[in-house]
């Protein structure tokens, strides 16, 4: 534990000022009074250039370490992916100049390794909420649900997750986890079996981004119908309504909550490549509660645990899912609601 001394309390405030000065949005906008001093501005600019180096992965305030021993003194810490020799101009100075922190405060460089987002990734059992993707495509989405019949179960996710938006051919291999999360040839879990085609061009006519893949017989015993982090199966289905509180478990952001804002949302989604813009109608706009890689997540009504949709798109303005009932009608299937425990 860092000693709670008056000296450290003062030092913490001073380092915090320096930290803000070199990390807040833009020099000149942040802390205008401090950075009006030319020496402080020059120091901040220099430290900003160091923080901008690709090898610097984070910056913070922690106890300084010297020759493997904690010193009991706070320092401005530059976390790097690996410690390496750099040009003198790019070297972290041993102290933060007094112009920026009112008195000289020490710095330290700590090797942290590569910082990557933590994702829901596993190889077995095969359960909703975890990473899945199409072999040969460097991506990953979320396994949304298991759908029947129980004798020949399928996994449900988005077309752009399982079928590259319809470009993939039926029978292509589906990997669990997806290729982006390390899924390889030994991770084949299913074969693409059904893709709901897009009506391309941008007109507001499409109702869903959905596809299914038939689980390989050899992996059926690994199926776990319970949604990751929730530990439950969907309690049926329902229709979305404005103000409904929803929850989903996705490969990237895990368990998160949102609120329905609009149940007849129309928008154009540009998938790029050979697909281009696709217009959607009667979609469900929610508050923002998802991130890239969450596509395919089953969205549930929070109060009842009933499935309400399949997440597939987002922007800073919100997250969008397709209502689940039309999807199940089109794929002619039902959610598997009995508990399979993957054992």
């Amino acid at each position, binding site marked *: 534990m860092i000693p709670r001394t008056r000296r450290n309390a003062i030092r913490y405030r001073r380092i915090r000022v320096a930290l803000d000065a070199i990390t807040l949005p833009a020099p000149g906008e942040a802390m205008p009074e401090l950075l009006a001093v030319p020496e402080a501005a020059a120091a901040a600019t220099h430290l900003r250039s160091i923080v901008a180096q690709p090898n610097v992965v984070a910056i913070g305030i922690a106890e300084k370490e010297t020759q493997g021993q904690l010193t009991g003194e706070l320092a401005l810490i530059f976390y790097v992916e690996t410690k390496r020799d750099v040009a003198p101009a790019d070297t972290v100075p041993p102290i933060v100049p007094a112009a920026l922190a009112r008195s000289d405060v020490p710095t330290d460089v700590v090797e942290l390794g590569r910082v990557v987002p933590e994702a829901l990734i596993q190889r077995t059992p095969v359960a909703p909420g975890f990473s899945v993707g199409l072999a040969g495509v460097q991506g990953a989405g979320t396994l949304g649900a298991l759908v029947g019949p129980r004798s020949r179960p399928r996994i449900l996710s*988005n077309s752009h997750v399982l079928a590259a938006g319809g470009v993939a051919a039926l029978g292509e291999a589906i990997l669990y986890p997806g290729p982006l999360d390390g899924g390889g040839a030994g991770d084949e879990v299913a074969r693409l079996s059904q893709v709901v085609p897009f009506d391309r061009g941008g007109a*507001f006519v499409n109702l869903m981004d959905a596809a299914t893949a038939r689980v390989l017989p050899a992996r059926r015993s690994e199926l776990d119908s319970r949604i990751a982090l929730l530990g439950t199966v969907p309690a049926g289905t329902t229709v979305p309504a404005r103000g409904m509180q929803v929850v989903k478990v996705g490969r990237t952001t895990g368990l998160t909550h949102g609120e329905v804002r609009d149940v*007849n949302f129309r928008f*154009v*989604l540009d998938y790029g490549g050979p697909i281009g813009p696709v217009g959607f109608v009667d979609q469900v706009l929610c508050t923002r509660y998802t991130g890239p890689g969450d596509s395919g997540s089953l969205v549930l009504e929070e109060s009842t645990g009933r499935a309400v949709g399949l*997440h597939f*798109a987002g*922007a800073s*303005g919100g997250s969008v899912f397709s209502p689940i009932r039309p999807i199940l009608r089109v794929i002619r299937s039902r959610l598997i609601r009995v508990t399979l425990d993957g054992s």
Partner: protein
Amino acid sequence: MASLNDAERAREQTSDLLRELGAHAISVEEEPDEAPDGGVPGGGVPARRHRRRRGFAVVAWFSEEPPATLPEHVEVRVGTRTKAVPLRARRSERFRAE
């Protein structure tokens, strides 16, 4: 004041036109609260509180500057009458597949 049904009808009738004008998304949203009848400007407590009525608007989402010609209202036919539904423009990045 436009009802939810009026705004939904307006969205249905105008979304293709709005898309041609550059909108990448069209939502229907509740309008911000207005001072209730008898309310005091600045947020004072009204002497007599009336039941709050909610109004809705069509919101067109643009990734670029909305066209200057965008009208403030769109008109929809409700039976034999014509109703004006507020049309709002919003600057917002395009949605992406996640």
